[in-house]
C-alpha cells in the first residue's frame, strides 16, 4: 500500500463523486452502490480529482478555512481512513 503522507494520490477512478438531490449530500458512487459523505469528507475528496500531496491538500484547506484548529490532524486521519477504504489511490508519475 502506498504512503499517502509522502506520495501523491488521487480519488480512485472507480469512484464518482457528486451531489445527490435525493440524499441531499455529496456521495461516492462505485460499482455496487454509494456512500454518503459528510461535508468535510466531500470537501477533501473534491480536491483529489487531480493528483495531490498531503502537504499541498492541508495547505489549500488551511488557506480556505483559516479558523479550523485541528485541521492538519483531521485531514491526515481522514486520508488514512480513505486509503483503507480504497477511496484514494497512488497517483502515477
Amino acid at each position: 500500500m502506498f504512503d499517502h503522507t509522502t506520495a501523491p494520490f488521487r480519488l480512485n477512478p472507480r469512484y464518482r463523486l457528486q451531489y445527490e438531490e435525493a440524499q441531499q449530500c455529496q456521495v461516492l458512487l462505485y460499482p455496487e452502490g454509494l456512500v454518503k459523505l459528510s461535508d468535510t469528507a466531500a470537501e477533501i475528496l473534491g480536491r483529489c480529482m487531480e493528483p495531490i500531496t498531503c502537504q499541498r491538500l492541508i495547505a489549500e484547506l488551511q488557506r480556505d478555512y483559516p479558523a479550523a484548529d485541528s485541521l492538519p490532524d483531521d485531514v491526515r486521519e481522514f486520508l488514512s481512513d480513505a486509503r483503507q477504504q480504497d477511496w484514494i489511490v497512488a497517483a502515477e508519475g
Partner: protein
Amino acid sequence: MWLLAELTYACPLQCPYCSNPLQLPASRKRELSTEEWLRVMREARKLGAVQLGFSGGEPLVRQDLGELIAAADGMGFYCNLITSAIGLNEARIAEFREAGIRHIQISFQGSDRETNARFGGSDSFEHKLAMTRETIRQGIPLGLNFVLHRHNIHQVSDFLHLAEGLGAEFVELANTQYYAWALHNRDQLLPSAAQLQEAEAATHRFRQRHQGNMRALFVAPDYYEQRPKKCSNGWGTTFITITPEGDVLPCQSARVIAGLEFPNVRQDSLENIWRGSSLFQKFRGTDWMQEPCASCPEKENDLGGCRCQAFLLTGDAHATDPICELSPEHHRVGDAVRAAQAHAEAGEDAVPLLFRNTANARKLAAAEA
C-alpha cells in the same frame, strides 16, 4: 436506487440458466428506441436512481449503446455494462470509455475453452480473455462473473487463478438461481451439497493464500440456505428493471409470477409507475404478508424472502419463500435437491439440458399451447 436497463433479449449465447423469459420475442422491432431509453433514464434520474446497469440479452447487440452510455453519464448515472464480451472489440471499449462507462462486468461460462463453449453455446473463451485484458489496459474498472452449476462448480479454484492472472479487481462466483430457463433445467444444473461445500472451501482457501487486490464474492444457490434472502433489498424499494419493450419490473424475474399486470413506460411515467402502480405497491413493506411471515420476528429483516421463488415453488406469490425453514412448504426445496441428485445419479443424458434460443423457446410455447 438502481436502474437495470435490459436493452435487448437478443444474445449470441444460449446459456441454459438464462434469466430472460422462456417466451422470447420473435422480433426486435418492439424494443424501446434510443429516444425512449433517454426519456426513461431521465425519469429514473429524477426519481433518485444513481446506478445504471446496461444488460440484456447481450447489450452490445444495440448499436446505440455508446450513445446511451454518454447520455447516462451526462445525467449523473454511474454506468455499469454487464456483458458476455461477444461483440466487444478494442475500438468499442475505447468508445465506451470516452462515453463515460465506469465499470464493465464480463461473464464466463467455464474456466477453460471447452467448458465455456459447451455452456455458452459459442467458442468465445479466447475472445473473452482478450477483451478482459483490453478493458484493464484501457483503465476501466472490471469485474468477472462466473456462473456456477453442477457441471462447472468444480472449476472455482481454476477460475479464481485465471481471474487473478488476468488482473481482475473483482470476481463474482454466482451460483445459478432457479428462475426462468434455469428452473426449467434445474434437475440438470443444481449442484450437490458436497459440490457446493468444496467450492466454498476452495474460495476460502484462495482468499487466505492470496492477500492480493482481487476480491472474490461467492453467492450460494438459495436452495441450500435455511433463511430466505431479502430479495432485491425489498420489493419496490431499490431496484427498477426495464425490459427491452418497456415493461417495468420490481426485479428481473417478476414476470414469472402469473396474474400480475406490468406497467409500461410507453403508457405512463416512471414516477407514476414507481409511486402509484398496483404492481410496485403489491409486495412493498409487510402488509401483504400471511402466516407464518405476518407474526414472525424476522419479517423486517428478510421481508418474507423472494416473491418469485414463493410463487414458483408453491403457486402462491403471497406465501413465505419456501427457502425459509419456517415455511410449511419448506420440504419442496429438499424435494428439488433430491430430484436433481437422482437425475445426476441416473446419468446426465437422461433428459438433456434445454439451451436458451429461439427454436427452444418456440418448442416450449408449442408444448404449452
